[in-house]
């Protein structure tokens, strides 16, 4: 697939996500069904890009930021299915969709890597895919949790106790599901680093930021258990999202010399 065609499919996917999000708030059953159909179409076009990247690489499409974000957007759908059925999280659907839309909008402005990628020797490891995939799952969940934190502030302002409780429980379930995957991702990275460079930990910028993200979430989980601190817990999920964004984007852009320069 040419990069122009990929860009068009990406745009279609993003627009479909936005439309599905907007129609999802309709009270009418037909509108809801249309929204669901549009969401499925958006996921399908998203998966087409992921599939194309996979074929081009001949390997899991985690090569560039473009490929990682495309995969991340599709992962939101997968994670939603789990949250929907295991934690009764149907009310979170629009937030998953809008984040997919935002991610695909970002992807649209990126250059599609349609050429064959050279896989450096250091990345040729069995740890690579589970390490990245674990982080993706956790990133999706933390992003939605942070969105719910912002919504919970509005609910608090409006003194809507039912909504506030719903959001707070949603945040907790999302963090509880995402946190272990973030820990798994970090320790798989540590094991990989030990196999590749002989060190579990190198105090690299990306590593430190990902550790700070984990610590933010662990502070949330600990504060939530302590009555006087519980009301401040939510802020740490928001802080975790900020750290997550820094880890994912800014460290690569402004991090200087990094062992994760190719990530």
């Amino acid at each position, binding site marked *: 697939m040419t990069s122009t065609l990929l860009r068009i499919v990406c745009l279609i996917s993003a627009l479909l996500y936005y439309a599905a999000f907007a129609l999802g708030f309709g009270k009418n059953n037909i509108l809801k069904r249309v929204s669901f159909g549009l969401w499925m179409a958006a996921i399908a076009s998203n998966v087409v890009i992921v599939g194309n990247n996979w074929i081009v690489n001949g390997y899991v499409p985690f090569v560039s930021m473009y490929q990682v974000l495309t995969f991340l957007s599709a992962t939101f759908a997968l994670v939603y299915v789990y949250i929907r059925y295991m934690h009764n999280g149907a009310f979170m659907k629009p937030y998953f969709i809008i984040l997919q839309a935002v991610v695909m909008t970002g992807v649209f402005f990126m250059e599609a890597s349609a050429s*064959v990628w*050279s896989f450096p020797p250091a990345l040729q490891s069995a740890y690579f895919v589970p390490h990245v995939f674990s982080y993706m799952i956790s990133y999706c969940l933390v992003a939605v949790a942070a969105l719910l934190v912002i919504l919970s502030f509005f609910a608090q302002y409006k003194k809507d106790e039912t909504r506030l409780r719903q959001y707070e*429980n949603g945040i907790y379930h999302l963090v509880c599901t995402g946190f*272990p995957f973030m820990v798994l991702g970090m*320790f798989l990275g540590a*094991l*990989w680093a030990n*196999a590749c460079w*002989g060190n579990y930990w190198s105090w690299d910028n990306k590593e430190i930021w990902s550790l700070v993200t984990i610590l933010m979430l662990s502070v949330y989980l600990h504060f939530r258990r302590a009555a006087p601190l519980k009301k401040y817990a939510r802020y740490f999920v928001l802080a975790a999202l900020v750290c997550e964004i820094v880890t994912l984007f800014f460290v690569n852009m402004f991090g200087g010399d990094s062992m994760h320069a190719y990530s």
Partner: protein
Amino acid sequence: MQKTLAVISYLVLAAVTAVLLVMTILQSAGVTGVFSGMPIIAVFSVFVLSLAVSLFMFNPKLSVYHIGFYLLHAGIVIFLVSGLIYTVSGQSVSAAPPNIESITPTIAYQIKQQGGDAGELTDFYNRIGNSSTGETVSFDFGFRIPAFKTEYYEDENGNPTSNVKHYEATLEFRASDGSTETETLTVNHPIYHGGYKIYLMSAQENSTYGYQEVTLLFKKDKTEFLSDAGIVLTVIGTFLMCFGKARDKARDKTKDGQDKKDKKEKDKKKTAGKAPGTKPQKAAVKGGGAA
């Protein structure tokens, strides 16, 4: 079912303990690389899981969440302690052999070997030094790199690009009795020799002098298996704690729902027993709400 699960978990625990014992004996007998890599991580994972199930079976009141709590926090402590032991247990000596430039300062010694052509390297090196700290580590074996291979990716026309696909170093070791042994070293796949774990860190062509610079890392870390154990405990503990808690809550919710159902039925029976004409009372508690 619970009894069967308990028996299975105890048997798995016993089997894994036996495997760990055999591995410890092998390590003590001088076999290197026993407690390292994916197999040991798999063994530790099975061990921790069976330990958790056994704990739960031993005391069913102990929730999955609590088992996770203990494993996670024990794992963090073990990982940090093993890291601390590794950091403080260094070696020190004073000179660096020719053609070897040492880079990293602590117990792990990184060396650069100039050359790569077997004809140039007649000597086996038996020590490496660190120019910044003045430390040198001596081995009870000699080593050299008689061959080094670099493979490059090809473009659409089949011509090699500048992107490296594969590095492969051939390492030749000479024991004190003069016998030699050859091993292949690649990135991500360290080898074990003489109590050291040897890594192929990087390699690059020195265009000025026209030779290949090969960077190796020699590492001696007796606590590596402890670090791996700490990692396994932490990860499994986190999953048990986070997912176990959710399951416990779901169970409580179901139990709560069942209680409400029972109460509803009891109230229905009460109202049915009353005199005809009496308006039946709404007994159901408005249920639901988020967990």
